[in-house]
């Protein structure tokens, strides 16, 4: 089984450094004495590149499946989010969602026992976390989210451990691609295997794995051709080493032998740069030939009771509220899954006159004003009062509008009138650092207390 650190190195080399780092952190949380993980963690912290893995890891769903069964849930989630598994997008998404739910933090004021459960999950002790939840469940009913996590843990760690035993009893089957390649490989001809793969790709143009295998076989056939002179040496007895020796293994269609040699060439003291690519090509073909059992999680998934999708299309009234100037100012808290605002404010509490024609002035910002880049804005904010900050002409326009606006008497008066000024930016400027279009300014009278 590929180690998490090998996978982290491979992901880091592909530029997926965040996911690689989480895998390293997960490995370190599981085993603080893991020297590989520790040195990888230190390298990341120093901003150094991680070295290439000793062996090129096969990253597929079977690997993720094994990691989940072993309780390496953090590493499995990071690998699924990095998503280097082609052709399995749907299942990758499904497993990532389930792991995302399982590892999610507990609520802010949760019982200590739930905090401990989460801590155990992050340190790779899934079975301990499950025991913690089961003990708590024996004392009293769990909240719905905790019940579901317990069910998920049982499903992932127990039910599927049984499924693994059943799977191992099944007869392993070869894939259609492997069956297409086998006759040529039986005749010890990689060239014929390449031709067979080419035919298979033509017949199955959407099969990404077949296309990958075809490319790998083409690279290997080219390598054989590059070292073809070895066969012309006739009766001479000369020692054959290095790449030529591996090419001879390819000529005999001995993929395991070639892989072993390329592995040595890629990791030995005198590294041969091409060896790594050739090793990957050989391993790609070997993977395609492996008998496989699809990792099926056949047990019934935990119930979604209490977690129904309550998202509904917003009503016209809500849309109108959301689009109104009032809604652009502060409003009451709204939970995404509530049917509507938690509390709709009474009209008298909110700025009724906001953006009324009689109370507004419009100023168009000239298009030729230079945009201000974010660092300039940041510097200005560090030193100066906010309202003096130049933001691509925004404040100039506001000041101009303010000067033009003759507001007259407030339209609503109470014992404690509270004046508020509101601004709204319309038009094409999507970023306020590059405001373009129209500034509307309005005087708003709020009734105090």
């Amino acid at each position: 089984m590929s180690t998490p650190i090998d996978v982290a190195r491979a992901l880091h080399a592909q530029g997926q450094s965040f996911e690689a780092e989480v895998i390293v952190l997960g490995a370190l949380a599981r085993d603080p004495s893991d020297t590989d993980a520790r040195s990888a963690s230190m390298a990341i912290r120093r901003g150094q590149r991680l070295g290439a893995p000793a062996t090129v890891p096969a990253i597929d769903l079977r690997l993720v499946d094994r990691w989940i069964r072993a309780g390496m849930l953090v590493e499995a989630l990071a690998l699924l989010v990095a998503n280097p598994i082609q052709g399995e997008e749907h299942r990758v998404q499904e497993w990532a969602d389930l792991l995302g739910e399982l590892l999610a933090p507990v609520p802010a004021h949760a019982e200590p026992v739930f905090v401990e459960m989460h801590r155990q999950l992050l340190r790779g002790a899934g079975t301990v976390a499950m025991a913690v939840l089961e003990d708590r469940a024996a004392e009293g009913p769990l909240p719905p989210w905790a019940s579901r996590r317990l069910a998920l843990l049982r499903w992932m760690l127990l039910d599927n451990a049984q499924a693994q035993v059943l799977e191992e009893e099944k007869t392993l089957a070869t894939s259609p691609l492997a069956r297409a390649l086998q006759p040529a490989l039986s005749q010890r001809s990689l060239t014929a295997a390449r031709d067979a793969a080419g035919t298979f790709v033509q017949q199955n143009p959407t099969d990404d794995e077949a296309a990958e295998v075809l490319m790998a076989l083409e690279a290997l056939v080219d390598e054989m051709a590059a070292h073809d002179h070895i066969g012309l040496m006739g009766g001479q007895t000369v020692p054959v080493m290095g790449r030529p020796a591996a090419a001879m293994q390819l000529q005999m269609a001995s993929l395991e032998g070639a892989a072993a040699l390329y592995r040595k060439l890629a990791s030995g003291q005198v590294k041969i740069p091409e060896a790594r690519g050739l090793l990957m090509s050989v391993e790609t073909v070997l993977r395609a030939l492996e008998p496989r059992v699809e990792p099926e999680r056949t047990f019934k998934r935990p119930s979604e009771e209490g977690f129904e999708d309550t998202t509904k299309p917003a009503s016209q009234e809500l849309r109108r509220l959301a689009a109104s100037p009032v809604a652009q100012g502060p409003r009451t808290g709204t939970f995404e899954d509530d049917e509507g605002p938690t509390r709709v404010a009474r009209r008298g509490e909110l700025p009724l006159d906001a953006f009324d024609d009689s109370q507004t002035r419009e100023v168009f910002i000239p298009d030729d004003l230079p945009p201000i880049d974010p660092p300039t804005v940041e510097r200005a904010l560090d030193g100066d009062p906010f309202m003096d900050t130049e933001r691509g002409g925004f404040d100039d326009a506001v000041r101009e509008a303010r000067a033009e606006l003759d507001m007259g008497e407030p339209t609503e008066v109470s014992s404690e009138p509270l004046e508020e000024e509101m601004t709204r930016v319309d038009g094409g400027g999507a970023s306020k650092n590059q405001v373009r279009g129209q500034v509307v300014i309005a005087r708003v009278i709020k009734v105090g207390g």
Partner: protein
Amino acid sequence: MSIRPPAPGWTVPPKQAGDGRALVLYVDVDDQSHELAGQRLRHAYRLLRAGGDREACELLRTYGDDLVAVLLDVDLPGSVLDGILLTRILRGKVPSAALPPFARQMPSINVPILLVTGDLGRYSEVELRKYGGDGLLPKPVDIAHVTLALTDWHLRRQR
């Protein structure tokens, strides 16, 4: 101009007991992003939505203690403060005098702040971390990315 934060009549409702899921504040002007996020995160998180900077500040004052994370759109079009500036405010990196009144005297929060964008290529995660952010997520957010970013935060703190 006189403003008292929070202004009367703009106060948020009393805290709700909720349903026990972890509470996350998501600040984004786009309704569709809110809906998608609510749908995708619902199994583990309860989303509290804010459509702009002012509303975010109000909700942070009221629900700050209950949150496990804050998701902020980087751009926040239509707001005075963008996601980066809000992050710096919440991390106490901007002097109060330099802030609009509604953003003054904000409580400091000790939960991860994840910035959200529809265009990952525009921003450097390293830069955003300097401003006090704890991660950069693609839109629309989903449960796997959010949890992975929060896991990263928890594991870093445990070290």
